[in-house]
């Protein structure tokens, strides 16, 4: 093969680098994630001309079914879950031609998969490039990875990469063990651990806001910031995920991955470059500086809650323990609030309050930077009654955008000051449909760009922070508090922040 130079026709086009021809192998192909997220994302990439000119998808799962049945199921899934509708049948038809299915009910069936991969590879000229996607329940990760190694599923000549879905382990020890199994077959730079929050446009925009502007960074320190609040509120319950959720809870499901990622992006130092190594190095540094909560302080610095019956949007909803599939005496946390500190020069003494919960009044993910009040008060108390400290709010979902509150004079005779809002909304300013985070992440994995994926040491730092809290909870500290569905969590959460003379924002 001739040595290939850069493609001169690429210049000036949207993607400076597109994925090379490749085979995508999805394990867990008969599952929910494949139907709801992965295949709709692939189809939308095809619609936008973003997939390579030759590309194939091979689904695999325990279930026996024909490739035709598999394609038909995916067709219906795309028709139902794609962000663009209705389904474009012409595009689907040629896309579906490149989809195959190989059942892997037992170890020996992986040989069959290897043969199919070799054939497809030859047909489409993928030069051995393979992306393995683990979309199975976590218990299947290890056997599948071992089978990839044992049956020689890695291609020859090209690259092989593996995408691992969350949850990545259920504590530090299991995460480290999973990593050691993964590394029997893949090098660390071939491992793409997904945290789909990182694929969201607004999350990437935290870095743009902080590091492409010169006005925010100088005040992004303990001198100017009073505290930071990170909220991920969901109004839904656990839907059909009781089996998984009841054994994990909000701490493992949301805090360990998504919220600690947001915290890292807000708290990190400026990276030297926007590439996978620089960005992730900085994230790891800040996670390492995140003060561990010792077991004897867990009672004071954390709140765990579980929702009881209540109302959401006027509808009566059952309590967590009455949800189908949940044990009637379940101790699982559906709400978490934490107060934590980053022990470094920039953030010394600045509290970060973090909370997440299910069955809260509305769906909202946001980061609020609360600044200190003006150092010297020149206006009378009466004049500045309605004035609050400046606040910068990064809204991640829904209504993505950024707003800044500041004081302004009320335009009447005499002096009254009130807080007003300066608002930037993505929707209004760009009016484009943001791509789904899975589109961004699958494309990045195909291109080998790991910036938006979680590195081994990041995952380990996250678990190292979460493990002692879970251990404290295991000892019964603090007590599991209950809250009515449709309220902003248990009153202990309000008390946690009220002790410092502060209050939670109402998102």
């Amino acid at each position: 093969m001739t040595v290939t130079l850069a493609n001169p026709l690429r210049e000036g086009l949207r993607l400076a680098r597109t994925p090379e021809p490749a085979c995508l192998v999805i394990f867990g192909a008969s599952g929910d994630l494949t139907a709801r997220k992965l295949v709709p994302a692939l189809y939308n990439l095809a619609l936008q001309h973003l997939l390579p000119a030759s590309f194939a998808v091979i689904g695999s799962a325990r279930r026996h079914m024909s490739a035709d049945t598999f394609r038909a199921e995916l067709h219906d899934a795309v028709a139902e879950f794609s962000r663009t509708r209705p389904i474009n049948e012409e595009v689907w038809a040629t896309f579906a031609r490149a989809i195959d299915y190989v059942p892997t009910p037992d170890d020996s069936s992986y040989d069959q998969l290897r043969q199919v991969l070799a054939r497809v590879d030859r047909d489409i000229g993928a030069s051995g490039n393979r992306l393995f996607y683990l979309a199975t329940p976590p218990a299947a990760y290890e056997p599948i990875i071992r089978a990839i190694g044992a049956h020689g599923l890695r291609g020859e000549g090209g690259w092989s990469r593996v995408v691992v879905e969350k949850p990545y382990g259920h504590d530090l020890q299991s995460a480290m063990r999973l990593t050691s199994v993964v590394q029997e077959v893949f090098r660390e730079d071939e491992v793409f651990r997904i945290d789909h929050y990182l694929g969201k446009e607004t999350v990437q925009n935290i870095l743009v806001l902080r590091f492409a502007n010169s006005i925010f960074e100088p005040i992004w320190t303990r001198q100017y910031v009073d505290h930071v609040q990170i909220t991920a509120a969901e109004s839904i319950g656990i839907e059909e995920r009781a089996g998984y959720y009841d054994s994990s809870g909000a701490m493992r499901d949301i805090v360990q991955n998504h919220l600690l990622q947001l915290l890292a992006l807000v708290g990190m130092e400026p990276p030297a470059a926007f590439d996978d190594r620089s960005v992730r190095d900085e994230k790891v540094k800040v996670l390492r500086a995140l003060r561990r909560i010792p077991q004897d302080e867990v009672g004071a610095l954390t709140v765990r809650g579980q929702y009881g019956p209540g109302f959401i949007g006027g509808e009566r909803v059952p309590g967590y323990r009455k949800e189908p599939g949940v044990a009637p005496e379940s101790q699982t946390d559906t709400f978490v609030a934490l107060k934590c500190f980053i022990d470094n020069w920039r953030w010394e003494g600045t509290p970060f309050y973090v909370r997440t919960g299910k069955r809260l009044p509305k769906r909202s993910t946001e980061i609020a930077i609360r600044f200190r009040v003006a150092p010297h008060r020149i206006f009378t108390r009466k004049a500045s009654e309605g004035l609050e400290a400046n606040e910068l709010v990064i809204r991640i979902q829904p209504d993505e955008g950024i707003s800044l509150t500041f004081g302004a004079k009320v335009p009447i005779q005499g002096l009254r000051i009130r807080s007003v809002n300066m608002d930037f909304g993505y929707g209004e300013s760009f009016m484009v449909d943001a791509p789904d985070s899975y589109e961004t992440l699958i494309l990045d994995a195909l291109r080998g760009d790991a910036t938006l994926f979680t590195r081994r040491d990041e995952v380990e730092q996250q678990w190292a922070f979460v493990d002692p809290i879970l251990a404290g909870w295991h000892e019964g500290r603090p007590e599991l508090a209950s809250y009515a569905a449709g309220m902003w969590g248990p009153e202990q959460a309000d008390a946690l922040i009220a002790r410092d003379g502060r209050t939670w924002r109402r998102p």
Partner: protein
Amino acid sequence: MATAVTVVDEAFWGTTATSIDALERELARLRRAAVAHAMERGQTLARASVLNLVVYAEREAQARRAARTVADLALRHPSRAIVLLADRDREGVVASVQLHCHVPQSGGGQPVLYEQILARVRGDFDERVASVVIPLLVPDLPVFLWWTGTPPSDARHLDDLATLADRFIVDSADFARADLTLPEVAQLARHRMGITDLNWARLTPWRELIAQFFDVPIWRPFLGGITGIRAGFAVDMDGHDIRNSQALLVLGWLASRLGWRPVEALAPAEAGGLLFRMQRADGAAVMVRLRPRFERGLDTGDVSGVRIQARVGSDTAEFVIKRAPDQRHATATAIVSGVVRAERVVPLPALGIRELLGEELAIAGNDHVYEAALAALMALA
């Protein structure tokens, strides 16, 4: 200010104002009213301007069409639009400036504030036009100048407006003799502003699809071995309306990216077609044929298909992109040594002017690739 003779449709263009100050006062009043109206419905209304858009038109129909596009576009790029309607060179017309403004209400969804001003300048337009535009521009925001029709090659009013602009937008699909007028567009670069040709924007999906063939490492060597290019472009049924600017831009793009030099223009077999012999960097010849074809459902001038033939050693290859008869899709096929190696159908809808402009407005810098394509075409002319 002199009174206007002809009546402008106030229902469309909004209230009249007697001076620029009065116009600004009126806009402020309209903004407040819109905010109050939104608040009554429990919505908030932000004045999120991202750019000034100046539209130059010489006929009211053009101005209206542009205004409608701009209003649609405002949902994506909130802006202040200044539509200049120029009644130029009309003898006996009293020189006058007529101003109208309104704040259109967007229907449904997120309300966005968008301001539209019509400045109808009559009589000796050329000298006074910039003095009308300058005070109306929102400070610190980029100025985009959209020129409907063919830009004149040497004209004071264009020069004056161009000095204000950061970006100049034309649509070379409207050019009758593109082989002669496209080089004029290249000349506009002297104003040191970015140039956007909507017809170039129409080619973006074509460029993406062509480039993708050569993203495949085993096919990339064929880029250096191209022997022939054929491109079809749509004409009307009688074959009279020849607008070859899009097909020429495809050629200019390939030639500039791959370092081809023009050798000679040959007489084409069919009327309205173009036939060139070009030379690759290694000296081998590339035959280029641009053919007019009648295609139902395609706008005149739109490219209907591109076929790239190549040979490397004893291997031959053909890369073909062809619009499907439904005119909403294209088939991209790679044939290597006579065997179809990849074939797929991709969406290729005809983009409306709104999508094109919206896409281009998202890019703020200069498009060097377009300028290089124009330069390659100048060498051909």
